[in-house]
C-alpha cells in the first residue's frame, strides 16, 4: 500500500480528517496516521468504540455533524482500500528523501509491544495540532492540578470528572466549555478565573461581528454556566495551589492590568481538583527538523509559515490546523480542505471543491483567522506572571529545576533563551523534553520574543529494541 501512496497525513483531528477526506475525494491514495486509537483528535475525542454506548458524551461536543460526516467518509474510503488508516501509530521522525518524504512510525497497537516502520509518499501534510500551554505557579505540581485540556480529555474520553469541587484558571474562551462540561456532569465548579478583562475584546469589534457562529457557541456555554450558578471572574488568577498529598485549596487573587496580584485581594477556596490553561502551544516537533520557515503568531508562539494554500516553505510539505496558528476546530477543518486542494493541484489532480466552494472556504478561513487573532490579543499571558513564582517553585517537573535556578542561569550564567537555560540547568532535558516547561522557561528568559520550541529530532519516545529491529531488516 505505502508503495503507491500519494499523500501521508499526520494527525487525524479536525484538520487532518478534513484534509484526508478532501484528498481522497479527489482520487488520491492517502495514509492517515494518528497516535490515538480513534479518529477525532483532541477536539473530537471520544470514549473507546466499545464503551461509547455506555458513556454518552454528545452534549460535550461541538460540530458533531461535521465529525460524523468526516468519520463516515474515512470509513468508506478505508473499506474501498483507498485510505490506509494507521491508528495507534506514533511518528518519531519525518525526513525528506529523494523526491518525497519518509515518515518513521512506531506501531503501538499491541502496546507495550512496539514495532518500527517507514511510510513513504511524495507529499506530506502535518496536522499535529496543539497542546495546553502551561505556566507554573506555586503548587502546580501537586496531584490534582491538571491542565484544562487534560480535564476536558478525561470528560470526553471516558466521562470522568477529575474532582467534585473544581477551580479553573488561566485565560481564553476554552475555559468556558470545560466549565460547562464539568457542571453538566455534576461537578461543583467553585471558581472560573479569567486573567484577561472582557473589555479587551472591544478593541477588536470587527472579528467579533464577522463571526456570529462564535457568539452562538459562547452564548450556549454562558447559558449552561448561568444555569449552574457559575460566574466567570475577570482579571483574577489562581496564584497558588495548596495541599499535602494532593491539592486541597487554591489561592485566588485579583490582578492589576500588568497581571501582578493586587495586594490584599487574595482569598482561599477549598477544592479537590484544579484546571489551568494559558492557551495552547502548537505541536511542531515534526516540522522544525524538516526545516520549514516559522512565523510569529499573535499569541506569542512561533507557528509554521504557510501560503494561501497551506504550503510550507518546503516543497511537498503542507500544514493545517493549530500548527499554523491556534484558531479552533472550524478553522482547522477549513485549512485542512485548503491544504488538500493544494495537494490535488500540485499533483495534477482535479479540484474537489469547485471555484465557488473553494472561495467560500477561503473567506471562512480568513474570517476565522481574524477571530483567532483578536482572541490571542485579548487573552495574552499576563506580563507580570513571573512575579507569582517563588524561587523554589519547580518549573521543569521532569528534572526538578526551580524558577530560582532558571533565573540565576539568566543573570549569572548569561543565558538569554530557553535552549541555553536547558544546557545550564537541565530544564527541558527530561522525559517531556521541554514540551511542558519550554513555554514557561521561555517566558522567564525572553518573554518579548515569540516562543520557538527546541528542535526535537525524536518526536516521540521509542524503544531502542524497535529501532534495532528495523536496522537488522536492512
Amino acid at each position, binding site marked *: 500500500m505505502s508503495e503507491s501512496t500519494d499523500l501521508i497525513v499526520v494527525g487525524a483531528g479536525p484538520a487532518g480528517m478534513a484534509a484526508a477526506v478532501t484528498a481522497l475525494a479527489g482520487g488520491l491514495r492517502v495514509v492517515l496516521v494518528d497516535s490515538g486509537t480513534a479518529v477525532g483528535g483532541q477536539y473530537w475525542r471520544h470514549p473507546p468504540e466499545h464503551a461509547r454506548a455506555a458513556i454518552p458524551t454528545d452534549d460535550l461536543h461541538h460540530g458533531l455533524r461535521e465529525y460524523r460526516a468526516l468519520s463516515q467518509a474515512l470509513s468508506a474510503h478505508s473499506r474501498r482500500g483507498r485510505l490506509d488508516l494507521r491508528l495507534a501509530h506514533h511518528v518519531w*521522525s519525518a*525526513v*525528506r528523501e529523494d523526491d518525497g518524504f*519518509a515518515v*518513521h512510525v512506531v506501531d503501538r497497537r499491541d502496546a507495550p509491544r512496539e514495532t*518500527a516502520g517507514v511510510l513513504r509518499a511524495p507529499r506530506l501534510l502535518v496536522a499535529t495540532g496543539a497542546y495546553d500551554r502551561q505556566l507554573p505557579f506555586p503548587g502546580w505540581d501537586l496531584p490534582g492540578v491538571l491542565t484544562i485540556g487534560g480535564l476536558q480529555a478525561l470528560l470526553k474520553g471516558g466521562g470522568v470528572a477529575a474532582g467534585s469541587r473544581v477551580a479553573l484558571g488561566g485565560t481564553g474562551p476554552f475555559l468556558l466549555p470545560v466549565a460547562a462540561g464539568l457542571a453538566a456532569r455534576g461537578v461543583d465548579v467553585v471558581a472560573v478565573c479569567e486573567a484577561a478583562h472582557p473589555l479587551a475584546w472591544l478593541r477588536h469589534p470587527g472579528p467579533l461581528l464577522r463571526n456570529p457562529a462564535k457568539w452562538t457557541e459562547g452564548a450556549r456555554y454562558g447559558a449552561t454556566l448561568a444555569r449552574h450558578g457559575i460566574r466567570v471572574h475577570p482579571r483574577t488568577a489562581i496564584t497558588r495551589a495548596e495541599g499535602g498529598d494532593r491539592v486541597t485549596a487554591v489561592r485566588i487573587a485579583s490582578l492589576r492590568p500588568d497581571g501582578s496580584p493586587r495586594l490584599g485581594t487574595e482569598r482561599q477556596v477549598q477544592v479537590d481538583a484544579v484546571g489551568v490553561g494559558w492557551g495552547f502551544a502548537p505541536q511542531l516537533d515534526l516540522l522544525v*527538523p524538516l*526545516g520549514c520557515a516559522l512565523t510569529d503568531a499573535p499569541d506569542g508562539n512561533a507557528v509554521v509559515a504557510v501560503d494561501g494554500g497551506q504550503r510550507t516553505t518546503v516543497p511537498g510539505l503542507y500544514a493545517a490546523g493549530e500548527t499554523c496558528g491556534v484558531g479552533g476546530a472550524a478553522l482547522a477543518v477549513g485549512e485542512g480542505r485548503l491544504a488538500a486542494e493544494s495537494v490535488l493541484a500540485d499533483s495534477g489532480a482535479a479540484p474537489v471543491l469547485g471555484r465557488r466552494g473553494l472561495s467560500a472556504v477561503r473567506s471562512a478561513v480568513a474570517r476565522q483567522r481574524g477571530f483567532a487573532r483578536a482572541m490571542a490579543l485579548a487573552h495574552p499571558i499576563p506580563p507580570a506572571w513571573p512575579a507569582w513564582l517563588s524561587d523554589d517553585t519547580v518549573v521543569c517537573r521532569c*528534572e526538578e529545576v526551580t524558577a530560582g535556578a532558571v533565573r540565576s542561569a539568566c543573570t*549569572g*550564567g*548569561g*543565558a*538569554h533563551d530557553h*535552549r*541555553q537555560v536547558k*544546557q*545550564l540547568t*537541565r530544564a527541558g*532535558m*527530561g*522525559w517531556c*523534553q521541554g514540551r511542558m516547561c519550554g513555554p514557561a522557561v521561555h517566558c522567564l528568559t525572553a518573554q518579548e520574543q515569540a516562543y520557538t520550541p527546541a528542535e*526535537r*529530532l*525524536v518526536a516521540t*519516545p*521509542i*524503544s*531502542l*529494541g524497535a*529501532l*534495532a529491529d*528495523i*536496522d*537488522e531488516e*536492512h
Partner: protein
Amino acid sequence: MTLKVVVVGAGVVGAACAFHATSAGLDVTVVDRGAVGSGTTSRGEGNILLSDKEPGPELDLARLSRALWDEVGEELGPDSFELDRKGGLVVASTTEGLAALGGFAARQEAAGVRVEPVGEVRDVEPHLAPGLPGGIRYPQDAQVQPVLAAAVLLRAAVERGARFHPGEVTGAVTGREGRVAGVRTAVGDVLPADAIVNAAGTWGGEVGRRLGAPVEVLPRRGFVLVTEPLPPMVRHKVYSADYVANVASSDAGLETSCVVEGTRGGTILIGASRERVGFDTTMNPAVITRLAAQACRLFPFLRETHLIRSYRGFRPYCPDHLPVVGPDPRAPGVIHACGHEGAGIGLAPATGALVTAHLLGRPWRGADPAAHTGLLPNRFLTSGGAPE
C-alpha cells in the same frame, strides 16, 4: 605592558584559553557570535579520553590535559561541571579483536597511559552481553558536562579580569610589519589585540581565513542518542574496540561504532557516528537505527529502554586528524587552537595552557611549546609559507 589577547570562540577550548591566559596575568577578551558553549561543545558527550588515542602528539596533549582537568576541579570545584572520573572500558567482540586491542594498549602503556586488562568484562560492567572475550579498562578516562565546563571556565576567567564581547569577528587589523593590532567585528567594533587566538572550533577554518591565516578545518557530523533516565546501569564509558579505528579513519561515508555511557542525570548516551556531509543538519534516521542496534548488542537491556532525544553536531577535523595549536607564521600574532575533532572537551585545558605558553614565550602549567611541535600549523605549510 600587559599583553592584550582576543580569544575568538567561547566554546570549551576558548574558555580554557581565556582561563589560563587570565590566570597568567594577560588581558583577555573573548568574542563569540553565540552563547557560551553553544557550538560543538554542547553537542558531544563530554569525553576526557586517553583510551582512544595512539601514542603521538595528541596523546601527549591528552595526558597533560587529563592532569589539568583535575587541577581545574580542585580550583573551581569538580561538581560545578560534573567531573566524573568513571574510567573507560573498551571491549573486544572477537578473540582476534582482543589480541589487536591488547597490542594497542601495550603501546599506550609504554607512552604513560594506565591500562588494566579485563578477562571477564561482566565483572566490571554486569549488564554487558554474555560471551564477550575481554577488554581493557582505562581508569584515567573521565567525563564532564561540557557546557557547564565551558561556562565555569569562562566565569572564572571573567572573575580574574577577562571580558566577554558578543559579536562576530570579520577580520584582523594589522599594524607594523603585518603584526596584528586588533580584530574587527560585524558591527564595526575594533577590539585592540596584540595576539588573536583562533578557538572557533568547527568554524576555525573560516575564522582563520578572515584573520589572514587559513587552516583546513572541516566538519564531521555525529549523532548522539539519549535515553530515558534510568537507575545506574552503565558505570564506565563503554565502547567497542572498532571505535579507535573509526576515530582515526578518513573514510567519507557513514561510520558507526558503539559508545555507551551513563550520566549524572540518569540518561544513557549512545554514540558515535561519523559522516562527512559538510554542515548538513538533516536528520538521518538510518544512523539512529544503526546506533540503536549496536548499543542493544553490547547491552541487551537497552532493547526495552526508550530513546527520548537525539542531537547532532559537527566535529572540527584537520586532514591529519590532529588539532592545530600554535602561532601561524603567515599572520604574526595569530595563534590557532582548533581542529580537535571529537576530543575538544578532553584536550581543552592543555590547549589553553599551551596557547598561554606560546603567548608568554615560556612553559605554563606543564605545557612546554617545545614538547608539542607536532601540533604547530607549520605542518600544513610548504617551506615558502603557503598552504600545501
